[in-house]
C-alpha cells in the first residue's frame, strides 16, 4: 500500500542491467535515426543554461506541480501560523483564538460554523469533549507534516547511501546490502511499522519518525542501485577513473549528481507515502501518543462518531488527501522536469 515507491522501471533482481541498458541504448541511438530526437535535441539555445536551470524551467511550467506547490505552501502556512508552534521551550503564538487542548462548552451540538461569510466560532466544529476541532486539525496537520518530512528525509538518505554503495562497489558489498534490503522488503511496511511504533512511539514524534524512516528506504535503494549500475559503466566515469579520481569523488561528484532526479522524485513520493503510513498507524491506534495528536489519530478517535458528527471524521481526511495530493503532484512535476522524454509535443 505504501509501497508505491517501487517504480515500474525500478530494476529487478533477475533483470536489472538489462532493462537499464536497453533503455539507455535506445535513448542514445546515433545521429539522426529517430530524427525527432535529433530535431528536438538540436541546441538552439545560445545563452548558457545549466542542466539545473532547464529542470527548473520545466518544473515551473508544470501546472499540476505549481498547483501542488501553492497548495502545500498554503497548508503549511495555515497549520503553523494558526495555532502557533513550539521551538524547544519557546512557544510562537498563532492568530487563532483557541488551542487544541482547551475544553469548552459545546455550541450548537458542536457543528462547524464555517460558511461563506466567515469562520465563526468553531469553523470545523467541536469534538465530543468540546475542544475546538479547527485547532485540533491544525495541530494534527503540524505533527503529520513533521513526521512525513522526517521520514522522507531519513528514508531518502539511507536509501541513497545503500543503493549507491551496492551499485558502485558491486560484488560482496552489493550482495550483503541487497539481501538486507530483501529482508526489510519481505516484511509488510505497515506490519513492521505497527510493531515498531508500539516500541518507540513513547519516545516522541521525532524518534518515532526517524525509526519509520529507517523502514521506508528499500524502494529507493533499489532504484539508486540500478542508476549506479548503469552510470558506473558510462564513459565519463571511466574518464574520471582514468585520471585517478578517488572512489569517493566518483560517487559524490560524478555519479550522484546524475541520479539527483530520481532521488528527488522518490523523496517526494516517500513524503506522501509517509503521510499515508502515519495516518494508517494512527488509525490503528498506534504511533503518536496522547496528549499529542495527528491527523490519523483524530480520525481513529472519531470513527464511532461518524454518523453523529461526520465533520470530525471528514476534516482531518480532507487535510490528509490535500497534503498527499499536493506532494504527489509536485513529485509528478519533478519527474517530468528531470526526465522530459515523455513530456508533450503539442500538435
Amino acid at each position, binding site marked *: 500500500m505504501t509501497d508505491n515507491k517501487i517504480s515500474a522501471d525500478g530494476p529487478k533482481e*533477475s533483470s536489472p542491467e*538489462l532493462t537499464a541498458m536497453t533503455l539507455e541504448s535506445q535513448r542514445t541511438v546515433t545521429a539522426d535515426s*529517430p530524427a525527432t530526437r535529433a530535431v528536438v535535441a538540436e541546441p538552439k539555445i545560445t545563452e548558457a543554461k545549466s542542466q539545473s536551470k532547464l529542470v527548473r524551467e520545466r518544473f515551473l511550467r508544470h501546472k499540476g506541480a505549481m498547483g501542488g506547490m501553492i497548495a502545500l505552501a498554503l497548508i503549511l502556512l495555515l497549520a503553523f501560523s494558526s495555532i502557533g508552534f513550539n521551538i524547544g521551550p519557546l512557544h510562537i503564538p498563532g492568530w487563532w483564538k483557541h488551542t487544541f487542548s482547551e475544553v469548552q462548552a459545546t455550541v450548537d451540538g458542536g457543528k462547524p460554523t464555517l460558511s461563506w461569510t466567515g469562520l465563526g466560532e468553531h469553523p470545523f466544529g467541536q469534538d465530543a469533549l468540546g475542544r475546538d476541532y479547527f485547532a485540533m486539525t491544525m495541530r494534527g496537520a503540524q505533527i503529520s507534516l513533521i513526521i512525513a518530512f522526517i521520514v522522507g528525509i531519513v528514508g531518502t538518505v539511507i536509501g541513497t547511501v545503500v543503493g549507491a554503495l551496492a551499485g558502485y562497489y558491486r560484488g560482496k558489498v552489493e550482495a550483503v546490502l541487497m539481501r538486507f534490503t530483501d529482508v526489510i522488503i519481505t516484511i*509488510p511496511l505497515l*506490519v513492521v511499522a505497527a510493531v515498531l511504533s508500539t516500541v518507540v512511539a513513547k519516545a516522541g514524534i521525532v524518534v518515532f519518525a526517524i525509526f519509520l524512516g529507517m523502514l521506508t528506504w528499500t524502494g529507493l535503494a533499489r532504484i539508486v542501485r540500478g542508476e549506479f549500475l548503469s552510470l558506473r559503466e558510462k564513459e565519463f566515469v571511466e574518464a574520471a577513473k582514468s585520471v585517478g579520481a578517488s572512489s569517493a569523488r566518483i560517487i559524490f561528484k560524478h555519479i550522484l549528481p546524475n541520479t539527483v532526479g530520481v532521488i528527488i522524485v522518490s523523496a517526494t513520493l516517500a513524503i506522501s507515502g509517509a503521510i499515508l503510513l502515519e495516518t494508517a498507524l494512527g488509525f490503528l491506534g498506534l504511533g503518536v501518543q496522547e496528549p499529542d495528536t495527528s491527523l490519523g489519530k483524530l480520525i481513529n478517535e472519531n470513527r464511532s462518531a461518524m454518523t453523529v458528527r461526520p465533520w470530525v471524521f471528514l476534516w482531518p481526511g480532507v487535510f490528509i488527501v490535500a497534503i*498527499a*495530493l499536493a506532494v*504527489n*503532484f509536485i513529485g509528478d512535476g519533478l519527474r517530468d522536469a528531470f526526465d522530459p522524454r515523455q513530456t508533450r509535443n503539442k500538435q
Partner: protein
Amino acid sequence: MFYFILKRAVTSFFILLAATALMFVLAVNSGDPLHDLAELRNADRESRIAARTEAMHLDQPVYIRYLLWLQEIGRCIIPGGAQCTLGLDRVGNPVIVQLQGAIGSTFRLVVVATVLAIVLGVLVGVVTALRQYSVFDYSITFVAFLLFSMPLFWLSTLLKQYLAISLNTWLADPAMSYLGIVLLGLAAGLIWMIIIGGDRRRRLQVFAVAFVATSGTMLALLLSNWFKTPGFGPFGILVSAFAIALGATALFAGFRRRRVVHATLATAAAGFIGYLLTRGIMEDPSWLTIAGLTVVTVVVSAAIGHFVGGPYAKQARQLTAVVGVLIGFIVFLDALLHAYPSLSRKTGGRPIPTTGSSTPNLEGTFWEVNLDYALYLVLPTIAIMLISFAMYTRYTRASQLDVMTQDYIRTARAKGLSERTVVVKHAFRNAMIPITTLMAFDFAGVLGGAVVTESVFGWNGMGKMFTDGLDYVDPNVIMAFFLVTGVAAVTFNMLADIAYAFLDPRISLN
C-alpha cells in the same frame, strides 16, 4: 528453470529466516504481555501469571523463545512428525486453528481485489497511454492521483458511510426519474466519446450510440423490475455470448479471417446451448461441479476452434477457449444473481453489508451462500481495488508510453500492420514486462494493508488476528501472520521473476 527455482527458494528461505528473527525480536519487545494480569486484584493473579509465563515461555531469553518458535515451525514443515501448531497463543491454544479460520477470508478479499485492480488498471492504463493528453487521460490521471493520496481507511469509511447506505436505500426501492435516466445516458455518452475519440463525426456517433444504449438499458432494467430480480435471463445470455464472441474477435484477431470469426460465433452458439442444457445441474451445484463444467467448456470450445478454424486452427483454438470461458462466467454470474431475491429475504433486505465477512449461520443453496460472500466482498474490494487500480494505471500508462516510442513499434507500423495488431501484439506484451514486478510488490502490500481494511469492515481475518496479537503482545500470533505474508511476498516475487522470464525471452532462468 528448476535450478533457478531451487536457488531462489534457498535464498528466500534465508531471507525469511532473517526477517522472522527481526520480526520476532520486535514482536517480543512491543509491550508487556502480562500487562492486563498485573492490574488484577484477584487471588488467582499469581497463578494466572505463572500459567501465561509457562505458555509463552516468558521466563526464557528472547533467542531461546525464537528457537522454540522455529522448532514449532519445523514441526509443520517436516511431515509425520509431532503435531503442527505454529506455537501456542497466550491462553495456550494452537495458533494454527486461529490462522486457518482467518486465512480464507483474507485471501478471498485480497485476491479478488488484486485481480480486479490488475485487469482494470492495466486496461485503463493502456487506453490513457493511447489517448495521451486527451480529456480522458487527464481525468484518469487526476483520479489516480486522488486515489493515490487517499488513506485506505478513510476511503473505506467514506464508501461504507455514503455509497453503501445510499445504494442500499435505493435498492430497497429502485426508481429513477426520467431526468436521472437522461443524465446517466449523457454521462455514459460523454465518457465513451472521450475514450474512443476520433474526428468530430465519429465522436458524435459514439456519443449517440452510448447515450441511447445506456439510457435505454437503464429504462428497460427499471421497467422489468431488474434490480429486484436481477439476472441475465436466456435472452440476455444469448446477446452477451455473441457480444463476447465479436468483442474478443475484434480485439485479438480482427475480422479479416472468416474462419476465425465463424469459430467464435459457433462457440457463442454452443455456449448458449450449453447454458440451456446445464440448467438442471446448475440448480444447486458444488464447486467441484463448477470446476468440471469449466473443464468441459474449455475442451469443447477449443475443439470448435480446432475444427472450424481450418488453416487458422491454432489461433482459433486460443480465441474460442477464451470466449467459452467468458461465456461460462456470464452463465455463472447469471445463476448467482438469480439467488438474490431469496437471499435478500433471508438476510433482511440490506443488500450491501458493511461489516463482517459473511452472514452468520446462513443456510442456503450454493448460489445463496456464494452470493452472500460476494456481497460482503463488494465494499472492501472496491476500497482496496481503487487504490491498487490507481497505481496500475499510472505504471501501465508510463510503460506503454515508453514502449510506443520504441523503434520496433515504428517497424511494426512500417509493415502496414493495423493499429490493433501494433498495440495488442507488439506493444502490450513489452509494456507488461515491468508491470509483473509491480504485481508481486503490490500483492504483498495489499496483504499487509488488509490489517487496515479488516479493521474498517469488521472482518475476522488475518488482519484482525494480527492487531489482536499486537494488543496482547502475543508473538506467536504476530509471527503466524507474518509467516503467511512473508511466504506470500517471497513466493510472489519468485512468480514475478518467472513471469518476467516468460514475457521477456532475453532473460533465461538458467
